[in-house]
């Protein structure tokens, strides 16, 4: 605490920024937490229907997406080490790989969703109205939870893209990279949620 003379506008506190980011991550976790509660209750009430409905989902696609997210999580974590080693080029490459992998995830998701929709499985469709109520709930939750997760992927991509821009402009450097760390934390959160979504939706056969 030696910067009391500094004007408030110039106040900089990297540790505080990180604390704030973590607390924000908690709110995100609980946002999904609400959906996980709904999921667990409905799965408990409709075990068989969830079982049957889950067979509609493509485990291979799900696994590929899991691998993509795990690798992208590693690359963004590595980029923080890279900036600490003052290796700007490697930082940018690693962040770029993260963005590309995120894009691949979204493309995959697009094919998965459009596949479902072409089979008539979407909220309010005729097929689903004839299905059992458990299946209806399963697909409702499936679209809501993976959809909300995909939204977070997009936000994370924008965040990482913005930080990349800062790295290019040398505003993020080896002694000033709190925002890169925070974008990394956000990206790991997205990964963390997927780690639970994957077995809960794709692996209950």
């Amino acid at each position, binding site marked *: *605490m*030696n*910067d009391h003379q500094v004007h408030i506008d110039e106040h*900089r*506190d*990297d*540790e505080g920024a*990180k*604390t704030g980011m*973590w*607390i924000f991550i*908690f709110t995100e*976790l*609980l946002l999904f*937490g609400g959906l*996980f*509660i709904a999921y*667990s*209750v409905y799965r*408990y*009430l409709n075990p068989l229907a969830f079982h049957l409905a889950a067979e509609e989902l493509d*485990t291979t696609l799900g*696994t590929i997406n*899991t*691998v993509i997210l*795990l*690798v992208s*999580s*590693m690359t963004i*974590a*590595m980029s*923080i*080490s890279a900036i*600490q*080693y003052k290796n700007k080029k490697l930082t940018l490459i690693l962040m770029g790989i993260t963005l590309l992998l995120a894009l691949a995830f979204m493309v995959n998701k697009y094919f998965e969703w459009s596949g479902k929709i072409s089979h008539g499985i979407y909220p309010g469709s005729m097929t689903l109205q004839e299905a059992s109520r458990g299946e209806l709930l399963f697909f409702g939750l499936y679209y809501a939870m993976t959809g909300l997760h995909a939204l977070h992927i997009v936000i994370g991509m924008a965040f990482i893209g913005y930080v990349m821009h800062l790295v290019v402009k040398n505003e993020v450097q080896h*002694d000033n*990279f709190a925002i890169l*760390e925070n974008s*990394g*934390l956000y990206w*790991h959160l997205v*990964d*963390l949620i997927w*780690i*639970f979504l*994957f*077995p*809960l939706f794709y*692996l*209950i*056969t």
Partner: protein
Amino acid sequence: MEKDQHTHIVKYRTYVYVLIALLFMTFVSVAVTGIDLGPYTVTTALLLASIKSVLVLLIFMHLKFDKKFYGIMVASVFLLLACVIVITFMDYLYR
């Protein structure tokens, strides 16, 4: 201010090891799905997911290298969510 937080640099190698472990557990959980373990299928899948998330939290998210207070906060938040789910099931299990 306290800049000492950032002195620790995680080696690239560590991240690669963690990724291998994560991928391994992913494939195990996919493989286990094929085997009928009855009620333990869900348990195994969730257990593996939990181990994976602990790894992500500790290494990727630097909890292992940060101040302890972050770890305590994260643990409390997960505990809170667990308690909420358990209490919700007080209703559904016995209805």
